[in-house]
């Protein structure tokens, strides 16, 4: 082992600098998902002797892997689900290799539990979607892929599992992957890697398998260790939602928060929203000393040169690069509550550090997550996804989720039960409801014959103009 040559101090120095990859796994009860995760933990030596002993004992008693060790038992923690034999909620697992640290959100593929996959995937950099090589692409594969695209997860691995049961057939693998790539392409997903696997036997999990000589890509672990994630976070647009105001004495007034996106330097001019007042960053304070600059997702406390009124729920941005601010927007909403969405109800909506009353207006359509068909809806039920118009009583500062997850995401809270009833991803302002749609410049891209491959570039240009006070909008 290479690490043996290092002293423990050297190892620790190196380990400290590793970055963190958060990943989501999705697949049905029978795709061997838990087995795959168990295998990753096992092969990266994250299973201890006592856990292994109880694993062997349980495998004999209630395992479903025959003579094999049933790795899935490692993951199914709660008593209730042990009895049912399925994972019922999101479970988080931790392991590390010489190159990286990993957090796995293990989520179920069962239809009823779409909300758990959404929960597990919201912070993921990468999603592993499992299919059983015997069954190929199923309805649920479409569902998982759609949800991954909805959450804006940038990197996808299609793990074609149980290749041992189809004799490691290249033809079978090719037909599954070409069907999948076609489907994923239609959702605009780009960074996809397909890997033929046997989680049970370990083929292409950590080591490349001799049984798939025709497969030229990396093993799953090699890929997880090297996939680039440093551009997953928005470092272009500075957004600093004020989380807490620090006022230990009369001489110090600091604004604490997590930088949601972008970079800030000492001396930069900033604008407070919604007030529009400007000042300059005088200090970036941390317990470990003042910083010259700070970036997302660091937590800092800033002080300003001028005494401007600023409190929790408000936001510091750069005057030349502002988010949308307003009361009306459109969003994709996933309903998480057993109780159906009631559009007559006034909910609480929480976005960044802002909690406000909100009304749900028109629903343009709901998406059948299995067929991706758009259907009529007048209220979403549990696990349904739809394009919804929302109005809030306070002004919110937000971006499109696609451009900026941290400021484009929100949750909807039931005012009576306090349950998190829905979650949303903002698509853009709702001009009609805002009633100021008429005088605006709107670049209707399809009408102008601008191809979808240019949408992002045009939207970037629009954001630039908006940041400079020219109110121009883009329509896809």
């Amino acid at each position, binding site marked *: 082992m290479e690490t043996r040559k290092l002293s423990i101090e050297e190892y620790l120095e190196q380990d400290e600098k590793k970055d963190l990859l958060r990943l989501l796994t999705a697949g049905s009860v029978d795709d061997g998902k838990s087995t795959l995760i168990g295998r990753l933990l096992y092969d990266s030596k994250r299973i201890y002797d006592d856990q292994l002993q109880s694993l062997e004992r349980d495998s004999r008693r209630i395992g479903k892997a025959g003579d094999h060790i049933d790795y899935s038992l490692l993951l199914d923690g709660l008593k209730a689900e042990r009895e049912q034999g399925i994972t019922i909620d999101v*479970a988080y697992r931790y392991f590390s290799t010489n190159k990286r640290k990993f957090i796995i959100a293990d989520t179920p593929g069962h239809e009823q539990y779409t909300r758990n996959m959404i929960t597990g995937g919201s912070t993921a950099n990468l999603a592993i979607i499992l299919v059983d090589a015997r069954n190929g692409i199923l309805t649920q594969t479409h569902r998982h892929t759609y949800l991954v695209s909805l959450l804006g997860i940038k990197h996808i691995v299609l793990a074609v599992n149980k290749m041992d049961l189809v004799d490691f057939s290249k033809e079978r693998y090719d037909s599954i992957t070409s069907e999948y790539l076609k489907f994923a392409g239609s959702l605009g997903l780009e960074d996809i890697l397909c890997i033929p696997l046997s989680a049970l036997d370990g083929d292409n999990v950590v080591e490349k398998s001799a049984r798939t000589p025709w497969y030229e890509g990396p093993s799953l672990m090699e890929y997880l260790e090297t996939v680039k994630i440093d551009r997953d976070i928005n470092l272009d647009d500075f957004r600093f939602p004020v989380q807490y105001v620090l006022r230990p004495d009369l001489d110090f007034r600091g604004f604490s928060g997590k930088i949601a996106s972008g970079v800030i330097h000492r001396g930069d001019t900033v604008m407070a929203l919604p007030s529009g007042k400007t000042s300059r960053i005088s200090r970036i304070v941390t317990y470990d000393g003042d910083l010259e600059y700070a970036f997302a997702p660091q937590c800092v406390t800033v002080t300003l040169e001028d005494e401007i009124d600023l409190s929790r729920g408000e936001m510091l941005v750069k005057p030349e690069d502002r988010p949308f601010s307003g009361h009306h927007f459109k969003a994709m909403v996933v309903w998480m509550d057993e109780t159906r969405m009631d559009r007559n109800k006034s909910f609480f909506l929480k976005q960044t550090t802002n909690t406000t009353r909100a009304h749900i207006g028109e629903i343009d359509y709901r998406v059948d997550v299995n067929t991706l068909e758009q259907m009529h809806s007048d209220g979403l039920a549990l696990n349904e996804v739809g394009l919804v118009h929302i109005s809030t009583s306070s002004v919110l500062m937000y971006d499109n989720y696609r451009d900026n997850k941290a400021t484009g995401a929100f949750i909807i809270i039931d005012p009576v039960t306090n349950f998190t009833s829905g979650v949303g991803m903002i698509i853009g302002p709702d001009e009609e409801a805002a009633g100021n749609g008429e005088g605006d410049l709107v670049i209707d891209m399809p009408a102008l014959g601008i191809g979808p491959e240019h949408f992002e570039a045009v939207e970037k240009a629009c954001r630039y103009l908006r940041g400079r006070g020219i109110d121009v909008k883009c329509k896809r």
Partner: protein
Amino acid sequence: MEENYQLSHLKALEAESIHIIREVAAEFRNPVMLYSIGKDSSVMVRLAEKAFYPARPPFPLMHIDSKWKFREMIEFRDRYAKENGWNLIVEYNKEAYEAGVGPFTHGSKVHTDLMKTQALLNGLKKYKFDAAFGGARRDEEKSRAKERIFSFRDEFQHWDPKNQRPELWDIYNTRIREGESIRVFPLSNWTELDIWQYIRHENIPIVPLYFAKERPVIEIDGNLIMADDDRLPEKYRDKIQMRKVRFRTLGCWPLTGAVESDADTIEKIVEEMMVTTKSERTTRVIDFDQESSMEQKKREGYF
């Protein structure tokens, strides 16, 4: 100078935890940080100090004293709180204590229920705390792996693993009704190695019991139990031997097994951990006293 916009995993975890701690301070009326004196608590307390610097954290620490903690833990607790200006609340189950409840006489199950779970529930109720930070990590134990960072408790302070609020991004639902509360776990995503790394990197003081030293121990049911005070039953007294041991976790002394070790520095502890073949909680007697026992305890309100 070129600017670097990438956070190491340790700095990313630190930022996540500070954000969580500030969110609680901003949204709850009366939060408290539960302080167990262990290494995880020590990290959590430092993170709280960082979160509000240059101000003081706007909540107290509360220690639930089972009255069977190691003496070194109590000394450490009082010194740390005093030196760092913390308001420290110590609560215990007076009635059970006066009735002489303890692990040797009543067994670990009854002792834990009365001196830990009930004492905790009473402490939270007495001060009407609406949010309580705990230092639990998801990698410690299977039922913890499924718990939310903001974990809702009903008016009986019970946890319902099948009806948890969805938790997405870093947007935490903090809304509760009168009498309900939230347990908050800012270290949810830290592993044992992360904790040691951080303690080393930040020079965080910890109880010396974590480091190997010659200590008086007795072997009881396969566990190396340290003779910490004179409540050790008569029958064990002539079996005490000096062994070089340390503790991987700290709890009540009769319920916490020591491991034989030469690791007297953090580096050696980490080295030992990397070749170790037993998970952290095997030295905790209480995890094994019934099937799925941690989940059961958590449902009843224990952390």
